[in-house]
């Protein structure tokens, strides 16, 4: 079933090869588990320890003092409910904006092909070549005073939502997928008198579910993981995201409570990942590289 790799099946079939395989396999699984899961296990379990035990050496593997109210304390003291609410609000808002604007743009560039379409796509892709951090300063100044509209977007969700649309990579990913939808399908729809909007809604979008899923997950996780931009544009503590809020409160709370807060802040994206891991991984390897 699986294709041949570095080590030949014949070598593996020999008793010595078999034994060696299982030893290596055991070592790899153990090492990976310790390296990748270890720190996370330490985080979750330390969230249950009391203040002494959490800084004790050597550290305990299983918490001896069981303090589940670290979690409720973290929830109340750091006001995680509102930080979580803010983050969800920004993440799903950004998702909505990206789905509407980026999908429409990719559809137009791929299937409607307006004049200057190629040039516009080129200009969009050019933004991928500019190091993102270089643009942070002028972008911040734009948010302070949006030209023409003369609005200050500081401390408003627009500061997160609108720049999130400028995701050339998503547009590129979507366009490539739309390009693969057979022309005849859309022609048939327009023969029947379907408007471009109707075609998009009833033909293109249903076919594109896999790529829409991938783009959606990346959009949400992107906002969830972002740090610098929300730190700059949402200085008001009541408007902050989980990342920024926890960071700015991190010095004032006991370590075990802080760790409990970190655990809770990590859960949503981990859960998303565990549910959608298949889609994420296929999306990552299908289009993850080309930019």
């Amino acid at each position, binding site marked *: 079933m699986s294709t041949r790799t570095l080590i030949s099946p014949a070598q593996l079939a020999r008793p010595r090869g078999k034994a060696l395989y299982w030893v290596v396999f055991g070592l790899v699984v153990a090492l990976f588990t310790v390296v990748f899961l270890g720190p996370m296990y330490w985080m979750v379990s330390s969230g249950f320890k009391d203040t002494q035990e959490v800084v004790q050496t050597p550290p305990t593997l299983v918490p001896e003092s069981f303090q589940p109210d670290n979690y409720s304390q973290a929830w109340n003291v750091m006001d995680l409910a509102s930080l979580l609410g803010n983050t969800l609000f920004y993440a799903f808002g950004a998702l909505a904006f990206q789905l509407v604007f980026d999908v429409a743009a990719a559809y137009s560039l791929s299937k409607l092909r307006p004049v200057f379409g190629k040039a516009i796509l080129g200009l969009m892709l050019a933004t991928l070549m500019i190091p993102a951090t270089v643009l942070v300063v002028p*972008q911040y100044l734009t948010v302070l005073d949006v030209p023409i509209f003369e609005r200050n977007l500081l401390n408003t969700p627009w500061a997160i939502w609108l720049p999130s649309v400028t995701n050339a990579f998503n547009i590129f990913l979507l366009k490539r997928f739309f390009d693969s939808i057979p022309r005849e399908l859309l022609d048939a729809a327009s023969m029947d008198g379907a408007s471009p909007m109707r075609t998009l809604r009833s033909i293109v979008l249903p076919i594109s579910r896999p790529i829409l899923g991938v783009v959606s997950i990346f959009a949400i996780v992107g906002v969830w993981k972002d740090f610098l931009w929300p730190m700059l544009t949402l200085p008001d503590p009541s408007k902050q995201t989980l990342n920024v809020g926890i960071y700015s409160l991190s010095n004032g709370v006991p370590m075990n409570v802080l760790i409990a807060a970190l655990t809770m802040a990590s859960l949503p994206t981990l859960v998303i990942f565990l549910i959608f891991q298949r889609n994420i991984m296929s999306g990552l390897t299908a289009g993850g590289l080309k930019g």
Partner: protein
Amino acid sequence: MSAPSLTPSKAASARHAQPPVDGPPRRGGAFGRSLKRNLTAHGFLIGAVLCFAFFSWYPMVREFFLAFQKTDQGEVSWVGLENLETVFNDPAFWQAWRNTALFTVLALVLGFAVPFVVAIVINELRHGKGYLRLLVYLPVMLPPVASVLLFKYLYDPGYGMLNEVFGFFGLPEQQWLQDPDLSMLSVVIASTWMNMGGAALIYLAALQGIPGELYEAAELDGAGLLRKIWHVTIPQTRLILSLMLLMQIIATMQVFVEPFLLTGGAGPEGSTTTVVYLIYQYAFNFNNYGAAAALGLLLLVLLAGFSAAYVKLSRAEDE
């Protein structure tokens, strides 16, 4: 390109309605139809284009102007190369570039090699691939504040797990983030742990595309494990490897969040001050947007070459 057998009218319509998507009822002139089609198409584009205009294209232009301007209490004046001079004369300037270069080199040694080795190992195993893949990608899904604070605790010289592990193997304890000689390495280790998942999965996909016969042929020639990696695996994944290398360089030269959260940015004796941290300081601690933009422009010029190479290579891969 146009076949001579086409009648003039056919040729004309082929030229106009390149995509015959929406032209169902043939009403109005060709011009009217094409105008309507274009208006619809641009209508679909407008939202994204406006966002790009305000939050990408305009800032790109502005970055360039800012580098040669000074903003003083809302008053903007042209100062020519003065900002560049300020940046050059800053004692932190060369240190920041040295640190960034050090970070990039260390991140290439670790962050480039480790995921590749991990991908090879996972690819060789016949069992538990799904579990291992999942493990490697898990840290990528953690919010950076969580992973960074996690590492801060692991590195702690007092109760940190890492020194505990070192002690177990009889190695001397280290100061990690507090030691100016080790602080950058510590940042790189944390950063590799946080970010390697994506690269490892991409390599894994590339490895699965290598035809098995190549390994068989190499074996017939008497190649051992390492020679098979050197002569088959690496050449076969060359394009992906070089793309990832360029991407790594571009990404690591812009490192900010990890040192900012782990060591407060500067680190002991400024040992983790990176170029982007310096930009951040100019802009948001000293309100000197001009200097920040000038330094940003230098970074942009340096990275433009890598970006161009990346675009060229990924085009080659598309074909």
